């Protein structure tokens, strides 16, 4: 008799709630016509309830599914980040979708399912569950990227993403199987004990497994040198999905990576720090250099995303308590910044042509000064200028890494920040210093504007009064 698995339903409350709502969206879609507003309400309600359920379990850390699923402060914080980012993505989609002819209810269901996958990924302490989470997230995103069936770029994005993503999942699985083969278990804690027990034996398979694991994860978070897919996919996918992709899955994957390397294979003699450092430096540098020459703003933000992943990987390398809290803080600020920027991009889009060229922003400050000011603030925050949130986040990560003594890494990161200012400033230059070269027709849809306002308020608040959120992040620390 196979013993019944130890499932603790209360711990799984967020996942269950959200899955239920996602299925409800699917079913409700059968009964309504083209107007999807009811689905939106259901989705937002579902996300809100999920966020509430995240706190359902007291007495943390709690395990579920036979010690494969953890509920600790880190995962609760992540659930909040995911629900916020999914809600913002849905708010952005409300007006974007009818404009672009995306009128299927599955869109919202997929976003919710993707969020479920992200929650699972951030709460997984077992390799199999990590893989499950990654696949749920990835498959939802493949479909979402290509949801505009009549748009060539969207199809291209989906196909590229799918092929490379499937390939990457293969790498990931192979790496996981090697680690399993070496340690005999897929549970992260079990792996840690197994590694320390087998200290001294030939662990080349373990190292190979870890390398393949890093390769697979590198694809998923679009870290260099596995980043080639992301500019094309970001450019082709519908803009709210681009924003969604830039935030949620990255957070989830990086948290999973953090767990694996600090509570899983962390028992190894730190020989994985070097490859991660190399990837981090490559991401920062290639991301920034790639962004400098871009003329399409979605591609520019894709490359800047790559460089931000580089900064966050630095936090993964550092092993102290500041590291995981700085990672969470950075991702939270990053979420608000990205959704705000994409909100402005959607506002400035026109019917038919989305107006995505950077040259199209020339002279915005003379016609719509507040919009230009908001864009300027987001750009400066992404670059990391005080007193905005981006600076506090970078300061936090640099503190964490310097505490471990990696001065050279921080110096490289800092120099990359200078480089990144160049392309963020390019947009500000266009908006403020040049004269308009086209007729702006911004559509100030209320919900999209709401996302922008939320973004501005967030980066100002997190930049000037970051104290409360820092406390929360510290509570959620893994150490």
């Amino acid at each position, binding site marked *: 008799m196979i013993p019944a698995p130890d499932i603790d339903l209360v711990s799984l409350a967020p996942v269950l709630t959200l899955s239920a709502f996602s299925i409800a969206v699917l079913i409700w879609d059968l009964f309504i016509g083209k107007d999807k507003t009811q689905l939106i309400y259901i989705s937002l309600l579902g996300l809100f309830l999920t966020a509430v359920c995240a706190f359902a379990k007291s007495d943390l850390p709690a395990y579920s599914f036979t010690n494969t699923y953890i509920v600790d402060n880190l995962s609760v914080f992540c659930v909040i980040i995911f629900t916020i980012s999914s809600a913002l993505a849905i708010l952005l989609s409300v007006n974007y979708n009818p404009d672009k002819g995306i009128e299927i209810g599955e869109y919202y269901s997929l976003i919710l399912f993707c969020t479920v996958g992200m929650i699972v990924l951030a709460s997984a302490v077992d390799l199999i569950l990590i893989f499950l989470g990654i696949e749920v997230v990835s498959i939802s995103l493949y479909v979402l990227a290509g949801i505009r069936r009549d748009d060539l770029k969207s199809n291209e994005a989906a196909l590229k993403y799918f092929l490379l993503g499937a390939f990457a999942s293969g790498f990931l699985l192979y790496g996981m199987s090697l680690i399993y083969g070496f340690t005999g278990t897929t549970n992260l804690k079990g792996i840690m004990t197994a590694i320390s027990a087998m200290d001294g034996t030939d662990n080349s398979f373990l190292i190979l497994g870890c390398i393949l694991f890093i390769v697979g994860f590198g694809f998923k978070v679009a870290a260099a040198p596995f980043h080639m897919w992301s500019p094309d996919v970001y450019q082709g996918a519908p803009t709210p999905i681009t924003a969604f992709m830039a935030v949620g899955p990255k957070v989830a994957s990086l948290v999973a990576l953090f767990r694996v390397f600090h509570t899983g294979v962390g028992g190894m003699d730190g020989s994985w720090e070097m490859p991660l450092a190399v990837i981090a430096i490559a991401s920062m540098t290639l991301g920034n250099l790639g962004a400098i020459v871009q003329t399409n703003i979605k591609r520019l933000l894709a490359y800047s995303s790559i460089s931000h992943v580089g900064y966050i990987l630095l936090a993964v390398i550092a092993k102290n308590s500041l590291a995981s809290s700085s990672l969470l803080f950075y991702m939270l600020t990053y979420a608000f910044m990205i959704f705000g920027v994409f909100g402005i991009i959607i506002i400035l889009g026109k019917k038919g042509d989305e107006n995505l060229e950077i040259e199209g922003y020339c002279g915005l400050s003379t016609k719509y000064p507040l919009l230009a000011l908001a864009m300027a603030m987001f750009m400066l925050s992404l670059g990391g200028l005080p007193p905005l949130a981006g600076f506090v986040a970078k300061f936090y990560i640099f*503190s964490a890494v310097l505490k471990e003594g990696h001065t050279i890494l*921080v110096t490289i990161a800092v120099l990359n920040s200078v480089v990144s200012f160049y392309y963020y400033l390019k947009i500000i230059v266009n908006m403020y210093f040049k004269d308009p070269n086209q007729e702006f027709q911004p559509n100030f849809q209320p919900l999209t504007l709401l996302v922008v306002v939320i973004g501005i308020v967030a980066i100002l608040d997190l930049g000037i009064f970051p104290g409360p959120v820092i406390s929360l992040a510290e509570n959620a620390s893994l150490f």
Partner: protein
Amino acid sequence: MFLTFVTFLPLLGAIGIAFLPEEDENLVKKTALGVALADFLLSLAFYFNFDLTTPNMQFELSAVWIENWGVNFHVGLDGISLLLYIMTTFLTAICIISVWTVKKRIKEYMMALLVLSTGMLGVFVALDLFMFYVFWELQLVPMYLIIGIWGGARRLYASIKFFLYTAFGSLLMLVAIIWMYQLHADQTGIYTSDLMTITNNIDIPFGPQKWLFIAFFLAFAIKVPMFPFHTWLPDAHVEAPTAGSVILAGVLLKMGTYGFLRFNLPLFPYACNEFMPYVGWLAVVGIVYGAFVSMVQEDLKKLVAYSSVSHMGFVMLGIFAFNHYGIQGALVQNLNHGISTSALFLLVGVIYDRRHTRMIKEFGGITNVMPKYAIIFMIVALSSIGLPGMNGFIGEFLILLGIFQADAFMAGVATTGVIFAACYILWMFQRVMFLKSNSPENAKLTDLDFREYAMLLPLVVLIFWIGLYPKPFMKTFDASVTHLISKVDPSNFKPKTHTEHADSAPAGKTEHKSGKTEHKKESHSSAH
């Protein structure tokens, strides 16, 4: 609390102006001027309530900002920052008068100037490392916008170069700040970025001290600017609008020297003494090179820009003399440069407004058509050279006296800079003001109007006041300078032999107890 209010008043003014209608230009301009003048008058209150006897921070406020990191909102003024603070509010008001006739987007211009003012004031009063860095970076954006929107033909290139160059130095300083923060936490167990606490409690070993010095040095040397980090300055100054140049030269450059006095000298005394010859010679090169390059300039504004490099070289030389004369001279010269060079830029702006050219060869014989302008120009030019009776002499004399006591040869070479300054200024003056007019346009020029008098005369008054009776200004420096020297005194902090710096009151120094301080000509007991 009052200090915080005066510091943030320009920002509040800028936010208030944002709500005014753009069409009502007069209201916008009057509000901005009102805010700036009010700020200046309020800042004078600090001067009159200043305690001259203590080197400690005054008008302090310390409020918890980010508790988890030990970051506080800590502000305060001491002798080093007091007059710089007042000069900032003063120059802001003068700048606002100088942009009165600008037509293009005047509302944003006023807002940018006021926001910049708060940023600069914040830098001078910040006593917490994190807070200092925030304000240091904060003033980049309005300056960048001012150059980029209202500047000259190559303004895009100049503004981006300015931003990236300065950001590069600042970000390296950020790494140093975080490193020191961690070191202090390791040594004392307390996580704080408060400057005073760290200065008093930290003990940085010699090796890291050198690297930290270099990181901070880069950030401030780019700002000052010192040779060879000065290449952003000519572009930024030439392409910036008049008000931008005035603020850039008058205040932003002083932030670099202030940074040296507030951070490098107290925190890294061993590294300071170790690097003193290099920094000193770099400053001398700046003086002489700046002077030579000024001489061959054809563009009036570029000439003044390079003269800035030369003058700031003097200030740096004074600081790195590490004695009473030197640092006092440097502080006075800070003020002088702020006044004289700002006046020079304003004068160049006056003639540019009329002729829309800055090329020297376009002028000639201006004295005939604009005699009063010529008089004021002469006064400012002579003050820039350092003629006795005017402010420049006080500063340069003290600096040279100070550096002579430290390294006589350096002083000798630096003194030649004074002669070269006379060369390029007088030659420029002759070509512009005297001689034959090179262009028929010059005959139609009108002399100064009321607004231009209003912005130039206060500077002229200050030129003579500091030159003839500098005591009201210099007495504020004494206590702080003495305290600063005790922290970096070469006889106590010999490089290479890292001994305890236990005796913070070296032998032979007298504390200035009462307000009745010595004039520069009396003999202080100095470090040598």
